[in-house]
């Protein structure tokens, strides 16, 4: 991509259309930011001391990383996604946010894949233990989608909502500025409408942008957002721009075709814990952990010890972990979910059922990442559909059970799991 963010052939609309007081529902009136002026917003953020994180092209995908300016954005790029497949392709326009989220999510900045949670230093014959209390980075996230705002809200419940608050997440979360961008397109893997998380950003942002060919409709979501745009050359949006924005958002909504019926899903899944269908999924699942790594709400981690050479200084390093790892869960040292079927069951029932019990919300926002990035293309919405059918038809379950038991002895005693381990 070249440095030039100016888009030839696009003329800024006249400012005197006189319909600047357009209201969409009860929402605040939107203002308008010219495409060229996005760089002013970014500069302003940098001046305010923010590290800007947003979309960029890297290794054939649109990922999130630190941005130095507008030129880092994936202007003119988009993606094609389907179960197990992702492809970066050029657009025929110069949109900067004309893509659907890729393998990254914002969790990697609020809940870093690797972080030092504590340290121990040998002092004489004893140990001095402390926690890492260095200041957290101040991030401005640029380009947060509606489903991603929901994912952040879910992780807020995980890390901040319980009796124990994670200090690392808290510091980053308190400092972060969220500039959302409404989706104007969707991928075949998206199902935010089923999860009621999108595609339109409703709340939880400081600013929300809607990209149209000429620039951005700007919606202010907080006092911080208002202060931020004060210094920018915003003007009231004219009806033509507002309509273009509406059209874009409606396009996204229309393109979300995948659906998942969430009615009674919690009980349904927990009643299917003994379903033979888990074995069927396990025949395809590689237990590669991809789905958990790309999921914007998955939060599992492990702390390991990292010593320096002398062994006198130890850091306790927390790293992302996954329920798909065989020794993630153990009883008396023996893996408690030794089979892939039990691990897939744990993942799916946690996402869609027990998450409700734990955090009062679903653990899935319908972003579709786990579908796109699953090598064999396992689609959780399809698995849920099958489980629902099986729940409604015991005969079908029995039929599957027979085929499953011919290849895999179900319910065998745990001897085969312990052999060669203890």
């Amino acid at each position, binding site marked *: 991509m070249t440095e030039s963010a100016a888009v030839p052939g696009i003329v800024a609309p006249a400012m005197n259309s006189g319909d600047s007081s357009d209201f969409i529902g009860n929402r605040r009136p939107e203002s308008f930011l010219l495409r060229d002026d996005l760089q002013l917003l970014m500069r302003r953020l940098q001046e305010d001391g923010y590290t800007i994180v947003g979309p960029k092209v890297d290794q054939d995908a649109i990922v999130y990383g630190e941005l130095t300016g507008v030129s880092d954005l994936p202007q003119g790029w988009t993606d094609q996604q389907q179960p197990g497949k992702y492809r970066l392709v050029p657009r025929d326009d110069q949109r900067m946010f004309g893509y659907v989220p890729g393998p990254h999510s914002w969790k990697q900045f609020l809940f870093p894949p690797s972080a030092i*949670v*504590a340290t*121990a230093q*040998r002092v004489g*014959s*004893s*140990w*001095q*233990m*402390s*926690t890492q*209390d260095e200041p957290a980075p101040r991030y401005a996230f640029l380009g947060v989608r509606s489903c991603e705002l929901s994912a952040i809200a879910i992780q807020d419940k*995980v*890390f901040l909502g*319980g*009796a*124990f*608050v*994670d*200090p690392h997440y808290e510091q980053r979360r308190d400092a972060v500025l969220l500039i959302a961008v409404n989706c104007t397109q969707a991928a075949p893997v998206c199902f935010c409408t089923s999860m009621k998380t999108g595609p339109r950003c409703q709340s939880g942002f400081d600013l929300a942008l809607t990209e149209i060919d000429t620039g951005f409709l700007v919606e202010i979501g907080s006092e911080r957002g208002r202060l931020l745009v004060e210094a920018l050359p915003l003007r009231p949006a004219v009806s033509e721009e507002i309509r273009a924005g509406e059209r874009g958002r409606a396009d996204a909504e229309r393109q979300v075709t995948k659906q998942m019926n969430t009615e009674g899903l919690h009980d349904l899944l*927990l009643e299917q*814990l*003994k379903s033979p269908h888990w074995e069927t999924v396990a025949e395809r699942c590689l237990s590669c952990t991809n789905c958990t790594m790309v999921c914007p709400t998955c*939060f*599992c*981690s*492990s*702390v*390991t*010890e990292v*010593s320096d050479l002398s*062994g006198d200084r*130890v850091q*306790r390093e927390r790293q992302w*972990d996954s*329920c798909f790892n065989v020794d*993630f*869960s*153990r*009883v*008396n*040292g023996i893996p*408690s*979910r*030794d*089979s892939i*079927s*039990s691990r897939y069951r*744990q993942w799916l029932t*946690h996402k869609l*059922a*027990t998450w409700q*019990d*734990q955090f009062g919300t679903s653990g899935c926002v319908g972003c579709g990442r786990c579908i796109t990035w699953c090598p064999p293309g396992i689609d959780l919405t399809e698995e849920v559909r099958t489980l629902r059918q099986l729940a409604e038809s015991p005969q079908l379950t029995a039929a599957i059970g027979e085929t499953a038991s011919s290849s895999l002895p179900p*319910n065998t005693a745990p001897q085969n799991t312990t052999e060669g381990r203890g």
Partner: protein
Amino acid sequence: MAATCEPNQNPWLSHSVRIAGITREIPGVLTLDLEFEDSARAATWAFRPGQFTMLYVPGVGESAISISGDAADTGRIRQTIRDAGNVTHSLTGLPIGATIGLRGPFGSSWPVDECRGRDVILVAGGIGLAPLRPVIYHMLHHRQQYQELTLIVGARDPALLLYPGEFEHWRTQGLNIIPTVDHADESWRGGVGVVTTVLERLWLRSPAETMLMTCGPEVMMWYTMQTALGRGIPAGSLFLSMERNMNCAIALCGHCQFGPYFLCREGPVFRFEQLRSILRIDDL
């Protein structure tokens, strides 16, 4: 009912504790007496029977270990450890005077208050007696608050019974102790058989007024629950303590999940009713 680790403090912070005493219990198992190096922390330390801490050996790692001492004993923390793997091996090899880290206490506790005025049966298997010992101390300190108190304690063989040196004292204080082992020779005066066999024939004054707490291998606990239900003890009066590997102990790491629960938060002590529908689901 979860958090008793000090609020407003970084939950990842380990406090330095010094090993002030070591008691060798049975082969591979010992009890550490721990004292805080920071007297301020010592002054605020308190736990409820059934809770656990995360003991930390720098460079090796952390392990969840139940508190096996007396909650009324404020000067020190006693924990009984079995040498099972890396961390526990290291913990059981340290000399008196060594410093380790401690976070906690964490988790739910045994229903010692709910048990007031009732008959109480404790069923312990192997090292499962360790998390129940604080219950014994508590109930014997407040003996008049409880009716019949019975401890059924099982082990593989007589030499593997935990804390046998305290049995006589507990008996004189009003605890009916029935030890039973899987194997024994003629010299053993106690019973041979599993804890459920003992529970099967235990005289119950009033099953509806009886509370039962159990800790030991999951299979043992499951059959104990079945036997107790068969004897007419209500499901709501049965409690058990569960084990899964724990990493953070503060419901952030995901490891100890069991169905809808985080064992470190809703557990380790559960009312049987909470687990009844999921306890015997394979590989949950």
